[in-house]
């Protein structure tokens, strides 16, 4: 199951790889606007860092993924990989600035 929340992508995975727990409930913060893709209730999720990858476990039945300018996506209980949309440039592929 793949979800797209603006420039953030969230895909359900079967298992959590070896990863370190990470505090907070913010998946991505806009570098210019300061707006963030985050979970409404931080107690319903646990974030993990695995190398450069981010994972999130939804610990309750659902957890609302919110942002100032995007509709809310309720994510069902489970484990997800999280990454950012990319954009092509001839020099390098760089992350879109939200």
């Amino acid at each position, binding site marked *: *199951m*793949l*979800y*797209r*929340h*603006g420039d953030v*992508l969230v895909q359900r995975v079967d298992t959590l790889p070896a990863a370190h727990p990470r505090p907070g409930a913010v998946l991505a913060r*806009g570098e*210019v*606007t*300061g*707006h963030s893709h985050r979970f409404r209730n931080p107690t319903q999720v646990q974030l993990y860092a695995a190398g450069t990858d981010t994972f999130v476990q939804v610990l309750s039945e659902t957890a609302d993924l919110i942002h100032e*300018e*995007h*509709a*809310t*996506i309720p994510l069902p209980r489970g484990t997800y990989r999280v*990454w950012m*949309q*990319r*954009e*092509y*440039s*001839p020099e390098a592929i760089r992350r*879109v*600035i*939200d």
Partner: protein
Amino acid sequence: MRVHTSLSGPGHPITPHPEPLPTPVRSVPASEARALILRGAPGPLHFRGTLDLSGVTLTALPDRLSGDTLNVSGTGLDTLPENLDVGELIASGLPLTRVPASLRVRFRLTLDDCPRLTELPAGLSVGSLSVQGAVSLEALPEGLDVCFLNLSRCDALCRWPRQARVRFGHLTLRDCLSLRELPGWLTQIAQLDLSGCRGVTALPAGLRVSGWLDVAGSGLRSAPAGTPLRWRGVQITERIAFDPDSLTGAEILAERNTEVRRVMMERIGYERFLAEVAAQELDRDRDAGGERRLLRIDLPDDEPFVALSVQCPSTGRGYVLRVPPTIRTAHAGSAWLAGFDDPAAYAPVTEA
């Protein structure tokens, strides 16, 4: 339970219920205060920490409730008790029409999305006041004294007090559709968000904005020279804000910051941009945001500019995002942007 009294000295024997004031105040952790309030215990009551009653159905709070942080959002309360005295009060989504003059909030008062709120007490003084979405609020109180003031989506707001202060802080007036002017007492401010204030066409002569001024969709056609400008959060130049006709498609292609490029495209309009740069349509289909087009622009002495023109399903805002020149379909463009080299693997269940 600890009993606090402040009586001391001769002639004031400490008794379990001394009268007259000061009255002994029970000081309890927030969790204990929560249980007492849910049992209907009367005040006075002092709590320590964050007392979160949000979402609980309540008909009243005890009088003379005091403490650190109180959240009563979504409780259904239609009045706040007298002599409420807290560090922070979050009272969003309530059917309040007014708040009592006896209310004391030291740091932050949040009354967001209280659609019936029409009146705030004169002389209200608090560090941060947020009343966004108070769609019935037509005026602010005389003598208001704050550092941060958020009035976003106060559709009816049209009158300012004769005297008030927003001291060197932030004033957010996003989408205040009935506003026609800013008050003369506003002389210095760090951040001013006028985005969506279509009726505001000028700033007060004496106003100095030291941080930034957001002018997106406002009625402003100019700003004092040197004022840092924003367009819905994106830092932009005076030319992008006030002289979009002078922008060219070539300049937009050369802009490296994707957000600035998006604003520049919005300012000149996608149609003009794409016509000006003579885009060739490679493919067209629909996604959750509406029409999706894959466009190609040949560049001299460079590889072609191939981009996907899409709309955000939540805001409807248009984006043009560059993809590798090898992409041939709009779907493959979306898939590539999402990180999928194999377009067949890209099938989102929800897009927002």
